[in-house]
């Protein structure tokens, strides 16, 4: 399997999922390419494109909550941050993702 075509395929499928949820791919192209590449690597290894910034715990119920795009499982936190944890997706109104704070759930009134 080649990486580049798979990255494009993941992008195609993810866009259709995250768009209706109010998210888009980060405008930081370098970060987007890097994260998608990591997901392709994880998918080749595990058969599933897990979030590249989260540990796989071998606990199926928990691991399924970090399958990209994991927005539905962590929606409140991501909405507060205007981005997902790894930064692959940001709210549609975000133009400069580097200015978004990364705060733990308790700092945004969660958990």
């Amino acid at each position, binding site marked *: *399997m*080649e990486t580049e*075509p*798979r990255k494009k*395929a993941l992008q*195609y*499928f993810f866009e259709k999922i995250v768009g209706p949820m109010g998210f888009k791919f980060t405008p930081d192209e370098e970060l987007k390419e890097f994260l998608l590449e990591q997901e392709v690597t994880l*998918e*080749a290894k*595990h*058969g*599933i494109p897990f979030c590249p910034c989260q540990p796989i715990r071998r606990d*199926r*119920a928990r691991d399924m909550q970090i399958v990209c795009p994991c927005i539905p499982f962590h929606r409140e936190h991501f909405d507060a941050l205007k981005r997902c944890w790894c930064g692959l997706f940001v709210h549609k109104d975000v133009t400069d993702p580097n200015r978004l704070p990364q705060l733990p759930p308790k700092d945004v009134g969660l958990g």
Partner: protein
Amino acid sequence: MGEEFLRAIRTDEIAPGGMKTVELNGREVVICNCGGTYFAIQRRCGHMNAPLEMGTLDGKIVTCGMHCAQFDVMTGGALSGPVPADLGNETPPPRIATMLRNVALQMQQVRTESIRTYETKVEAGWVLVAKP
């Protein structure tokens, strides 16, 4: 001398996003209607030979209905291998569990190959496919 094309199917026989199998020159070919652009691919999945027209076509990506291997219908390139079996939290009966383990062991050895594509063109309401 130019490539020989064969009449495969009428354009109005497949709705956009649909697929249909035809036999051309003794070979099974799936015609894919990707939003009005037609592509022709080999029928058999590059993973375990399942009939691809029984899967789904999304954009220019076909997903096999058997193990969800994906292919680009423009190039035939394999985009992903099979997805892992999902048994959720259910524990299957021991005999079934043993069988599934054996199948999984064998499937680990199966490489997903790219599939063959054929050139297409549309003429007078027909999709023509380069002779396979």
